[in-house]
Each structure stands twice: as C-alpha cells, then as structure tokens.
C-alpha cells in the first residue's frame, strides 16, 4: 500500500555511508537497530518462529505529538531520518502538531523498526502500527 508523500522503500536509513542494506542510526555506525536485532536474534534462537511471524506484513511508522520538541527540530529530524524534502517534512510536522500523529513511513517490519529506533534516538515519540489493524 502507499500513502501520499510517504516513501515505502526509499529513505535515509538505507543510504548510510553508501553501503546498501546498512541500517545506520549514527554516522559512526556503532549504534544501529540492526545490530540490536542481530545480537538479539543470535542469542535467542527459540524466538525465531515468533520473530518471523512478527516481521510479516506491512507496518506503519507513526510519530506522535509531544509538547517539547521544536517544530524546526521535528522538520530537521524528518529530513535527516526519513529523507523527506523540506515541504514534505513540514507537512508531516504539521500533521503531528495539529492532529497528534503522522504516518511517516510504510513498509516491512524490520525496516520500520529501524526507522522507529532512529526516530527514538532523536527523541521523537515514534510507534509501529500493523497496517492490518486499519
């Protein structure tokens, strides 16, 4: 499914340092969602089936409003993390500010988790929602 203005497969996370498939949460590459999931997966094989089921389907990355973060900061984060251009970032920021929430990305679970992780690293309140719930 697609949502207007929302990238479903493109974005900044996959472009870190020009390495395909690297999911980068920081320039250094030290702090990554992928490293969290990799460590977790390798240490806990009994959860493999459950994890695979959880990773299926389409997921939404939703950013919720908070009264603290500046509008300019939220726009910056959307540009940096999701890869929005200025008008799109501003549109989603206003959705968050006025409507309390905005869907900023739609796609597979693991990549959605990476976006949520990075948005949380920037201290935005981001959640994952299953598309099937809507």
């Amino acid at each position, binding site marked *: 499914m697609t949502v207007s203005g929302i990238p479903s497969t493109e974005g900044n996370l996959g472009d870190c340092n020009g390495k395909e498939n690297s999911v980068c949460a920081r320039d250094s590459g030290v702090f*990554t969602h992928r490293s969290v999931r990799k460590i977790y997966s390798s240490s806990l094989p009994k959860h493999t089936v459950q994890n695979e089921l959880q990773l299926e389907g389409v997921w939404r990355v939703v950013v919720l409003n908070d009264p603290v973060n500046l509008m*300019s900061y939220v726009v910056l984060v959307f540009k940096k993390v999701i890869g929005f251009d200025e008008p799109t970032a501003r549109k989603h920021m206003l959705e968050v500010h006025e409507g309390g929430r905005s869907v900023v990305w739609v796609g597979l679970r693991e990549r959605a988790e990476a976006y949520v992780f990075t948005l949380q*690293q920037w201290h935005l309140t*981001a959640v994952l929602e299953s598309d099937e719930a809507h």
Partner: protein
Amino acid sequence: MKRIEVKLSLPVVAPLLDVIRELGNGLRERLAAPLTLTDLDEEFRDAWVAELLVAQSGDVELLLALFDGEFFTEGVVAFDEENAEMIVRACAAVRLRVREHFLLPLGDEALETGEVDMLKFAEPVRKAFMCYLFLATVQELIIQHLDASILES
C-alpha cells in the same frame, strides 16, 4: 569547516548549568522519551533500550562538556559540523527531562505556546523554564546555521 561561536552571559547561564548537569547525568540511566513499543519481546526490548541509552549518554556527555572550565573564563561555546548533531539531540533529551521533572504544572498547552506567567511559579520551576528556553535557543541556533551539515553527515 563551518563553526559558530556564541558568547553567553555568564551570570545568566551559569546558574542554569546545575539543572542541566543534574538532569543530564540522569539521562545516562533512563531514556528521555518514553519507549512506546509494546509488542517487543522483553529481551529484545532491553537490547533496544540499552543501545538507545549508549547513544543518548554520548550526546549528553558532549553537551555537558561544552560548559567546562574554558566556558567559565570566556563565556563562549562553539558549535560545528562535528558536534552539531549530537548537541541538538542532547538538548532535546534534556528539555524532555526538564518538562518531566519541573514543568508539568505549567501544562502542555502553555509549554507549546510559550505563554507562561512565571511569576505564578516558585524559583526552581522558573529556573527550570529558563533552562528549557536556553536549550531551545541552542537548538534553534544550530538548526539555523548548521542544518545542512547535519543533513549531509
């Protein structure tokens, strides 16, 4: 390398640093924003939080280091392409904690609009609100002047 130097008023800023340091130190152990993912396995969630905490601690440490001994002699802080991203994030983290610790009585609407009658509140709340505004100003400065550096990094 693009660099901004900001001369701050020591008598105004120095009293705020105790609040920033105290809350900043607390951020080594606790996330600034609530973790809202409810469907994560407990152990995966722990790993997720631990990774976020490492990043958050590094950011806050850099922010606190801005206000070291040299700051107290010159009153100058400098932002550049190297530290802008981490500082702007650290400011967000500390501002979230300032709200949680001190500013809840003000109400979220007042915080968002900035229309706060500070005379109604006790000294610790007034000081915390000053910190909150000061850190927002730092963020605005960085975003205004180093936005491109952050996006390109």
